[in-house]
């Protein structure tokens, strides 16, 4: 087994509670995004484009759909002889098994996997974010600065800073203070949840953290602060570009809408940085005589007979004649019946909106969510989940 310079550990066990019905039977990384993808496609594609060929995917919550989707990693080119993708669920050991207690504990429990490749560095990322990033540039930054840990940081609007771990950084990109989700943030450089650790150092701290009483075994809350306190060299890798945490209905909807602007800041068309995903292999989309499609992203397999404006349509959506879809995200296989109207909504996979039904309210800013496989007839409005903006 050859030695790997850097391997990736991708945390994909997130429950995504705030996504409500969309994650009822689905781990958050498997949630659909952008007309074709699932959230995890972005980080997996980043790994491959950054030259990382060994990725451990840590799963826990509702893994069935995610496991089925990932398979042996072939769509991302991760079906490799040496390395490739390995799915790492929690497991039973001789002294009984436990669930992953936190992000750091998940890595701790998989130290034998990492040791197998004996890497110099370990990249820890999560499958919850939408962004394109070359981790190799970050590794070069890590090596150049001689840091023990490098954390990718991005400037966020001040009002949102309290949702993230924020960092104070000096002129040489050295992190001088780190606060996890502060009530009154004093910096707006947020941690993107992308870490490069020098493996030997991380190993030491994981063992130490595991033994520490009262630890929640989380990178942001426990391991990084412990490293700070011991005076290790923590560097910040300043990232510029599109990065979005799509952990809420609102942010998921917004991130989809971001793709519809004239010059989207997240470019999906770069032939050198394709986002790979499992292709459903459907015929090209058919736009009929009665269709009108503007400012939208539409995937293959769709049949459009109605009006679609400012919307993202996944594969196999059928919008029947006289239907009207506006500012919405329509997931795979949804049928929008004749004359139905959909405003500012996220419609879950396989749902059916009966002819003539109206979803959402053009006068309201709220986002309406229709659950996976839900059948919405004319009088079912109480079933819908509405997320006020």
């Amino acid at each position: 087994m050859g030695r790997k310079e850097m391997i990736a550990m991708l945390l994909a066990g997130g429950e995504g509670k705030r996504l409500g019905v969309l994650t009822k039977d689905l781990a958050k990384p498997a949630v659909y995004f952008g007309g074709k993808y699932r959230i995890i496609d972005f980080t997996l594609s980043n790994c491959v484009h950054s030259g990382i060929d060994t990725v451990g995917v840590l799963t826990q919550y509702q893994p069935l759909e995610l496991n089925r989707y990932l398979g042996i990693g072939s769509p991302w080119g991760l079906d490799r002889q040496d390395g490739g993708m390995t799915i790492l669920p929690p497991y039973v050991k001789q002294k009984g098994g436990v669930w992953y207690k936190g992000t750091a504990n998940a890595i701790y429990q998989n130290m034998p996997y990492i040791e197998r490749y004996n890497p110099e560095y370990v990249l820890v990322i999560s499958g919850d974010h939408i962004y394109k990033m070359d981790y190799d540039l970050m590794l070069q930054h890590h090596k150049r600065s001689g840091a023990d840990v490098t954390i990718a940081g991005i400037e966020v609007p001040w009002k949102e800073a309290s949702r993230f771990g924020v960092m104070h950084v000096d002129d040489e990109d050295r992190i001088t203070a780190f606060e996890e989700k502060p009530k009154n943030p004093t910096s707006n450089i947020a941690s993107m949840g992308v870490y490069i650790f020098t493996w030997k150092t991380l190993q030491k701290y994981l063992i130490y953290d595991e033994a520490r009483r009262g630890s929640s075994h989380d990178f942001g809350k426990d391991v990084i602060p412990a490293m700070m306190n011991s005076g290790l060299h923590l560097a910040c890798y300043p990232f510029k570009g599109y990065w979005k945490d799509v952990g809420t209905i609102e942010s998921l909807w917004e991130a989809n809408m971001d793709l519809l602007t004239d010059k989207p800041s997240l470019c999906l068309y770069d032939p050198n940085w394709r986002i790979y995903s499992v292709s459903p292999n459907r015929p090209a989309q058919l736009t009929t005589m009665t269709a009108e499609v503007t400012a939208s992203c539409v995937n293959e397999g769709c049949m459009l007979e109605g009006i679609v404006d400012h919307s993202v349509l996944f594969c196999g959506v059928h919008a029947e004649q006289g239907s009207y879809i506006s500012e919405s995200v329509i997931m795979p296989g949804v049928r929008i019946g004749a004359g139905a109207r959909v405003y500012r909504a996220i419609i879950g996979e396989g749902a059916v909106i009966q002819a003539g039904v109206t979803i959402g309210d053009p006068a309201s800013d709220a986002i309406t969510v229709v659950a996976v496989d839900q059948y919405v007839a004319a009088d079912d409005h109480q079933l819908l989940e509405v997320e006020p903006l």
Partner: protein
Amino acid sequence: MKHNVLGVINLIHETDELEHLTQNRCLATVPFGARYRLIDFVLSSMVNSGISKVAVFAHTKYRSLMDHLGSGKHWDLQHRQGGLFILPPSSVDIQEMSRGDLYHFYQHRDYFQRSSWEYVVIARSHMVCNVDFDDVISRHQEQGADITIVCKRQDKQMPGKPRKVKMEENGRITAIQDHYGRLVSDVVSMEMYVMRKELLMELVETSLAQGQDHLVRHAIFSRLGQLNVYGYMYEGYLGVVNTLPSYYANSMSLLKPEVWKSLFYQPGPIYTKVKDEPPTRYASGSRVTNSLIANGCRIEGTVINSILFRGVHIEKGAIVKDSIIMQNGQVGESSFIYNSILDKDVQVENGRDIRGAGGTPFLVGKKKII
């Protein structure tokens, strides 16, 4: 019948009048239907019918074929038992290359002999259809036929050059003609033949021994009196795509929702080589009607009654009407394209006007800049 049938897609001497579209590629890999190649239809039909060992008898200009089919993984033909075999001619001798297809069947006889499977389905690549071979073989067995030919009844004359056949009431075939014959019949052969492997090997050897080397003309047609040759009536959509007018007409048929729904889905899905193109983006000022559009396109202009392959970019103010634009085509601002076929990677600069006259579409060759 699972695991009991060998598939052969025979590309040797296919009738090809597609002009520039087949200048550097074989008929099998002519792009069709916004994201497919012609061979995808018969290959997917075979796979969906449970045929898990398929050989493609390549003949000439097969570089694009190798690239398209690869390991066969996109058709689920990459596995331990069976899988995909691309078999080019075993010799480069020009005299041998020009010999009939039976000669090449003989050269590839190991493919048949190495397998213990019982039946063979032999097909061509230029039939756009979605066939359930499982049903064809059941009928073949019920009828006690020696050879079953998949046929289609066409009430009106369709573009394309198929072989017509003469069929009796009970389904027995009494005549098969060449592509240029004048036989009056509303039944056309889809050039898909089902028979036992032993019979095929026997036909190959006895025909060659008599100096005959064409499968249909010699091995089958000349034995119609001795063998029980029956027709199987296929009910789905059929496009015989071996001339330019038939290429254009059959492409445009895909815009009918009923054809789209049946051809691509029934009885099974049509597979093709997957590309990682993003979804197609319609800009705010775009206008698209009655069109078939693949992934990865960016549409800022107007598209009417047209087919766009993957990665096509229609810039602002451009109008594309009654046309087919293949992969990565680019149409500059305010250009007008009417009744034309643009092969892959064609770049039309701003303000150009391209139109085909009368019934024939104007054909622009691969990688041209206009």
